[in-house]
C-alpha cells in the first residue's frame, strides 16, 4: 500500500509498492487481503453485540418494535437500500476498471460511489431529523404519544418503545459512522486513482476499500428488514 518516495528508492528491484519484508507482490497482496477479511470478521462481532440486544428485546417487546418499525419511513428506507446497493455496484465495477487499467472510468466510478454514499447519509439525516420532529429520539423529550394514538391495538408501552428507538439509533448510527469512514477512505482512493497510482499490476487498495464498502452494504441489507419491515401488515 505504500507509495512513498523513500521506499521507491530502496526497492527499485521489486517495483514501488512492495514492502521490504515480503518476498513477492503476490505474497503481499494475499497478506493484506487476508488482513481485510479478518478485520471484517471482527466487524461482524462488533455489530453482533447490537444484534444480540435487538434479538432479545424484539422477542420481549414485539408490539413496541412493530409500532416503532411502522413509524419509520419505509420509502426512504427502501430508497436508501437501493442507493447503497447501487454504490456497491459502482465499487465492484470500479475494481474491474482498475484491473483493466481504465483510469478515467475508475475515477468516475469512485466519484459515483462517493455521490451515492453521501446521498445515503443525506437521506439518513432527513430520517433522523424526522425522528427529532416526532420526539422519537431517546432522552428527556422522548414521547410516543403519537404511536399510542395511531396504533391502539398494539398496547404500546412508552418505555419499551424507547428501547426500540435506542437500538434504532445505535444501529443506524454505528452504520452511518462506518459510512463516514468509508467516504473518507474513498476520497483517498479517488485522489490516488486520479493520480494514476492504480493499474492492472497494483490495485490492492481499491480491492480492499471495495471489500469494506460491500461489508457496510451487507450490514444495511440486514438493518433494513430488521428495523423497517418488522410489521407492516394490515392491523386487525
Amino acid at each position, binding site marked *: 500500500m505504500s507509495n512513498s518516495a523513500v521506499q521507491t528508492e530502496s526497492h527499485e528491484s521489486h517495483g514501488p509498492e512492495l514492502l521490504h519484508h515480503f518476498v513477492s507482490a503476490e505474497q503481499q497482496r494475499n497478506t493484506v487481503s*487476508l488482513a481485510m477479511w479478518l478485520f471484517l470478521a471482527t466487524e461482524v462481532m462488533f455489530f453482533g*453485540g447490537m444484534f444480540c440486544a435487538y434479538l432479545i428485546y424484539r422477542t420481549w417487546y414485539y408490539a413496541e418494535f412493530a409500532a416503532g418499525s411502522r413509524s419509520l419511513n419505509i420509502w426512504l428506507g427502501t430508497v436508501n437500500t437501493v442507493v447503497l446497493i447501487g454504490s456497491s455496484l459502482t465499487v465492484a465495477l470500479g475494481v474491474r476498471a482498475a484491473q483493466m487499467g481504465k483510469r478515467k472510468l475508475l475515477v468516475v466510478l469512485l466519484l459515483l460511489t462517493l455521490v451515492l454514499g453521501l446521498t445515503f447519509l443525506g437521506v439518513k439525516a432527513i430520517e433522523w431529523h424526522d425522528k427529532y420532529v416526532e420526539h422519537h429520539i431517546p432522552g428527556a423529550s422522548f414521547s410516543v404519544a403519537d404511536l399510542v394514538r395511531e396504533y391502539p391495538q398494539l398496547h404500546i408501552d412508552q418505555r419499551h418503545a424507547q428501547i426500540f428507538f435506542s437500538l434504532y439509533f445505535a444501529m443506524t448510527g454505528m452504520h452511518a459512522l462506518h459510512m463516514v469512514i468509508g467516504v473518507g477512505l474513498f476520497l483517498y482512493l479517488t485522489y490516488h486513482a486520479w493520480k494514476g497510482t492504480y493499474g492492472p499490476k497494483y490495485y490492492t487498495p481499491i480491492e480492499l476499500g471495495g471489500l469494506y464498502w460491500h461489508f457496510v452494504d451487507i450490514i444495511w441489507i440486514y438493518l433494513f428488514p430488521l428495523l423497517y419491515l418488522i410489521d407492516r401488515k394490515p392491523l386487525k
Partner: protein
Amino acid sequence: MATAAVSAERENYLNKEYGIRSWLLTTDHKRIALLYLVSITFFFFIGGFMALLIRLELLTPAGDLVLADTYNKLFTMHGQIMVFFFLIPSIPATLGNFLIPMMIGAKDLALPRINLLSWYLYIAGGALMLYAMVEGGVDTGWTFYTPLSTAFSNTHVVEAGLAIFIAGFSSILTGLNFVVTVHRMRAPGLTWSRLPLFVWAHYATSVIQLLGTPVIAITLVLVVLERTLHLGIFDPNLGGDPLLFQHLFWFYSHPAVYIMILPAMGVVSEVLACFSRKRIFGYGAVALSSIGIAVIGFIVWAHHMFVAGISLYSALVFSILTYLVGVPSAIKVFNWTATLYKGSISFATPMLYALGFIGLFTIGGLTGLFLASLGLDVHVTDTYFVIAHFHYIMVGGAVMGYMAGLHFWWPKITGRMYPEWWGRLAALIVFIGFNLTFFPQFILGYMGMPRRYWQYPPEFQILNVMSTAGSTILAVGYLLPMVYFMWSLRYGKVVGDNPWGAAGLEWKTSSPPPTFNFDETPEVTWEAYNYDQIPVPKEAWLEQ
C-alpha cells in the same frame, strides 16, 4: 549465520539507528516490542502500587487508611489497569511481537505499520486511563455492571470506558497481525506441525482477540451512550435488562482470561523443552489444546452469572460447558509433566518460573472447577475465593509465565545475561510471597468474606494480615528483577547467539538480532524442539 564470536560492533536492531525518532516511528517489530515492554511495565507498577494500597487498607477490619470511595476506585482501576493495560498485552505485545517473526523465519510481522499503530492506540488508551485516574478515577468495579455504571456512578466511567475501547482496538490489531503473519510469512519448510508451541498459543490467543474484543467494544460504547445520550438499552426503568450487559461483557471477558493465559502456556512449553532438552511430550495434543481452549472458551461465559438471575436451564448449560474447558487445560498440564520424564533437567531462572507456573496454574485451575460447580458457586461467588482463584491463575500463572519468558529471551533481546543468582532468588521470593498473599484468601472466601469490601468483620482479620504481609514480599520479588534487568543492560555478561542451547529459529540469528532478523531466509527441514541435534552449552548460568 554468525555463530561464535559476537563482536559488539555487529549491526543489530538496537544500534542501527539512534534517537527518539528512530524509536517512535519505527516499524521494526523488535523495537515496537520494547516500546511495549516499557509501557506495560509502567502500568504493571501502577496497578501493583494500587494493589499494595488495597492490601494495606485491608490490614485492619475498619476502613481506616483511605475513604470508602477511594478504596472502590482503587480496586476498580487496579483491575482495569492490570487486565487491559498489563496482562492482556503483556506476553503477546512484548514477547510475541519480538519473537513470532523470528520463530517463523520472517523479516517482520506482516503489517509493520499496523503494529506501530497498535502501540499508539495502546498508549492513547493508557493515557486516557491515566487521565481518568488523575481526574478522580472510576468506581464501578472492573466489570462496569449496569445500572451502577450507567445511571448511578458519578465518576469517570466514560473516560475509562473509552480508554478500554481504544486499547481494545490495539489488541484486535495485534491479534490480526499475528494471524496474518502466521498464515502468510512462514519460512519455507515451516509447516504447521513444525511450528513452535509458542506460536500455536499466540495463534489461538489472536483468534480470541479478533472475535471477542469487538463485542466488549460495542458494549462499552452502548454504556457510554447510555450515560451521555440517555439511550436506554440496559436501563431497567425502561424494561431493559441489566443482565444483558453482563452477557455481553462476559462474552468477551471470559475468553479474555484465555488471552491472558494462553501466551503464558506457550512460554512454558518453550522453556520446559529447553531446560529438559526434550521435545514437548504430545506436541500435537498441546498445540491443538490451545485452539480447543480458545474455542471452548467462548461458550462458557455465563458461569460468572450463576446467582445473577439467569434461568436455571442456562445455568446448567453453562456449568457443564465450563467443565469442557478443563479438559484441554488438563491435557497441557499432564503433557508438561510428562515432558520432564527422562529429560536432562537444569534449573535456570526461566525453568524455576515455568515449574512455578505449572503448580500455581494447577491450583488456580482446580479452584476454577469449584466455581464452575453450581451449588458451590452460589456460596463462594463474589467472595475472596474468586479473588484467590483468579490471582492464582493470573499472577501465579500468567505473570510467572511472563517472567519466565522475559528471563529466557532476555539474552536474545539485549545480548546480555541477567545475573543468574539474583534471578533464582527473586523467583523464590515471588513464589513464597505469592502463596502467602493469596492462599489465605481461599479460606477467607469460604468463610464468606465478600470481595470489594472496604471494611470487614473482625474475625477475618488474621487471614487478611497474612495476605497483606505476603503482598509486601511479593513487591520485593517484583522489584528485584526490575533492578537487575536494568543493571544487566550495562553490566550483564555479553552472550553468544544461543546461550541456553535452545532449539527454535530465533536462536539461530545473532543476539541482539539484526533489523531484518536473518541475513538470509532460513529453510526449515526439522521438527520443532530437535534437542537431540543441539549441543548442550557449558555455561555458568546453567550450573546447579
